[in-house]
């Protein structure tokens, strides 16, 4: 302490180390740190993180009033509250918590190891009656009989009892699940593992975004900071599709067909959808978004079926003319709409530039005379029939959309998941298994056996007590009439 004379330098040093060690090995500090992280996280959800300043200035005006808001905002911004979770002080708090965990565990582990590795020893006779669970009763029967029954009862409880012979009787003792005492350390260690995994991911990982037009190839992703990042291989978007539920515009699947190319060679051909990413060479690709490329840029894939059932697939552009086989008809594609609907006056209009309901307007001519004209929809087969009995179907519109792909490389993610799995196991062991000990003393006395039980559980004693009662129930039923059963439960 400060007011003590500092005569011995080395002692002084060790006492500083001791003070720090003492501070970091306390659960009190853990509780304070956990509370601080929780409270600061609340602030982080009130202030929108990484948002445009205006959004938070509005919030600040509500809290501090118009006059103080700009200053309050500037101060909070310089303290890092606008990007709080990566600010130095939030990371420092996490680091303190991790240190706290490590030191606290190191501090306690030797003691726990001693408890776990200490072999069970028989209890002295006066030791009975002073454990968490204490029972005493008398049975009718010979010692040899009762011994068998007691061993059976202990086995039933999951113990493998050792035996200790006495002058007029015997003592059985056993413990189980002593390793459950380590479970809490498994939890704490794995919190560290998870944090390490997160750091590895941030240090050695990459997060970025790729926008690929249908038919295009690229080898670059844009990082979150806006920098270009070369993958070392290329990705081609062969096609992008949205599927809808029935007639509605509710999306069912977003589907990108991709090809991975290395030095111009196709290495992998696959498709991705939301919740079904693809991985290649440490990078994972997630379907993230999509959008239209603007007008007139794509190819229309059509299937023409003649009256006698012959069909062929052809690609055309807006403005092209095609002949319908087996008929004198000639079709001209006049227009394309990405999402066509009809208003109340039956007038066609495009309701969004997303490709929700693609349609082409086609005019059919025989020689010079226009015979029919109408919209042909990709999603509505009824619109494909031509009055003369042949069919014109819009199969696909290609080159009209881009797909947006989230790219990630995170070598830490498996460390995080491993930590999560082990932490969960630790939690189950910590809460549902406990270190249990039991001693049973049998003393024979003229056709009667005096039974004393002492037991302890480092958790959930009540349940252990009940199961002991159950296992020893058949024995207790033999209690001599003249001897009332005694059941004492001590501290």
């Amino acid at each position: 302490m400060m007011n003590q004379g500092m005569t011995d330098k080395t002692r002084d040093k060790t006492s500083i180390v001791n003070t720090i060690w003492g501070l970091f090995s306390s659960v009190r500090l853990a509780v304070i740190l956990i509370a601080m992280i929780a409270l600061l996280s609340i602030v982080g959800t009130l202030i929108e993180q990484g948002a445009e300043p205006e959004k938070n200035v509005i919030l600040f005006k509500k809290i501090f009033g118009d006059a103080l808001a700009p200053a309050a905002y500037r101060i909070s911004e310089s303290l890092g509250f606008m990007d709080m979770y990566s600010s130095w002080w939030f990371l420092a708090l996490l680091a303190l918590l991790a240190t706290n965990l490590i030191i606290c565990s190191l501090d306690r582990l030797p003691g726990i190891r001693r408890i776990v590795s200490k072999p069970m020893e028989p209890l002295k006779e006066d030791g009975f009656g002073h454990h968490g669970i204490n029972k005493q009763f008398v049975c009718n029967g010979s010692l040899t009989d009762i011994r068998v029954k007691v061993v059976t009862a202990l086995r039933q409880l999951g113990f493998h009892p050792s035996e200790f012979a006495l002058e007029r009787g015997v003592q059985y003792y056993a413990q189980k699940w002593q390793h459950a005492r380590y479970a809490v350390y498994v939890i704490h260690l794995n919190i560290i593992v998870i944090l390490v995994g997160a750091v590895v991911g941030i240090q050695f990982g990459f997060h970025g975004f790729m926008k690929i037009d249908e038919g295009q190839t690229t080898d670059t992703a844009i990082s979150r900071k806006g920098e270009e990042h070369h993958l070392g291989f290329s990705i081609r978007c062969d096609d992008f599709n949205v599927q809808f539920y029935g007639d509605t515009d509710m999306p069912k699947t977003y589907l990108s067909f991709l090809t991975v190319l290395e030095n111009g060679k196709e290495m992998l051909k696959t498709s991705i959808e939301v919740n079904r990413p693809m991985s290649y060479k440490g990078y994972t690709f997630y379907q993230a978004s999509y959008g239209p490329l603007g007008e007139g840029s794509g190819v229309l894939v059509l299937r023409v079926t003649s009256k006698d059932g012959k069909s062929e697939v052809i690609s055309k552009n807006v403005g092209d003319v095609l002949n319908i086989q087996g008929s004198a008809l000639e079709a001209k594609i006049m227009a394309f709409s990405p999402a066509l609907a009809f208003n109340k006056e039956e007038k066609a209009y495009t309701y969004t530039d997303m490709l929700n309901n693609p349609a082409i307007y086609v005019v059919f001519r025989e020689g010079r005379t226009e015979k029919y004209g109408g919209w042909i929809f990709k999603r509505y087969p009824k619109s494909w029939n031509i009055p003369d009995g042949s069919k014109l179907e819009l199969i696909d519109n290609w080159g009209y959309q881009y797909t947006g792909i989230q790219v990630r490389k995170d070598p830490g993610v498996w460390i995080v998941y491993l930590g999560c799995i082990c932490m969960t196991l630790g939690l189950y062991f910590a809460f549902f298994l406990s270190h249990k000990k039991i001693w049973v003393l049998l003393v024979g006395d003229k056709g009667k056996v005096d039974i004393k039980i002492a037991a302890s559980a480092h958790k959930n004693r009540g349940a252990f007590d009940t199961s002991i009662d159950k296992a020893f129930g058949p024995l207790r039923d033999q209690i001599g009439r003249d001897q009332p059963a005694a059941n004492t439960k001590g501290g």
Partner: protein
Amino acid sequence: MGNSSVFFGIAEIGYFVAMMVYIAYFVFKGEYLGKGATTVTIVSFLAQTAAFISRWVESYNLGIGRPPLTNLYESLVFFVWCLMLGYLIVEFKYKRRSLGAFVTPLAALALGFVDLTGMSKKIEPLVPALQSNWLLAHVTMSFIAYAAFGLSFAAALMYLIVKTERRNEPAYVFWSVSSSVFFIVIFAMLLDYMNYKVVGESTEGFIKNYLFKTTFRNASSGVAVFSYIVAGIVVFLTWRYGYIIKKAINGFNVSVDFLDELNYKVIAVGFPIFTLGGLICGAVWADQAWGTYWSWDPKETWSLITWLVYAFYLHARYLKGWRGKKVAVVSVVGFITVIFTYLGVNIFLSGLHSYGDMP
């Protein structure tokens, strides 16, 4: 609408009746009332189970085919189901009914919120981001954990009532204010419900336009001020005459150790489930869908806060002087965090989770 809504209607009315009978039992004791309350609860629970199953079947008949656990309505209803199952287990295991008077209002509040906000009960197909078994595991386990936390909340509240002696004790003020606010909110919502009937609007719209408009946010400022005064009086009366509730509980001979133990035990069940389901499965889902297992968005952060509050509870039990009352307060705060994580974040904070978006 199929069978499920009929069964659900029975369950819903049943739970409200059960709440009344449990409270009557709580006040008047009387074995027949207790038996009646348990019977009504079991019948309602069975009806709700039937509703759950037939809704599942209906979704198959509609060609959607998924367990009914994917939107706000279904998840709130599932919460009530888990809560009542957990409660019935506790009631049968420990042969104690008095907790019912504290648990059934939670169920009533959740169901009341469903009806009051008129949220969509339609079986809708899922957008791509939600088509994930990780999400299903995440939602299921989160709500089982929330139900456990709900039980711990009820036990902690009872503990605080029994354990506090003086009106100027912080713990006494805490429980009397928080429980009276809780009942005022239920009651004000009930008034809104009677006033506006079912409102087929979006939940956000409902909150803006209707919630508490009968009372605190009434167009007439006189009514609003009056409501605040009445609410203040209710809080005051609860605080002043809280010993009546205390006496009522004491009449059941519930031991405080039992309540403390129960509080810890249900948290011990809920915490691992919440860790695995609420945090880890949620993170794996986010990872599968978007390529980041953790992005600090408000919903995720509030789940973490909830988790930290319960971690705080578990550790606080090891500190000297933090036994009993103080940790019971933490447990009540924990459940308030749960409610905020689930509803508050959607209502008050914007997030990128499309999942919680109210229809």
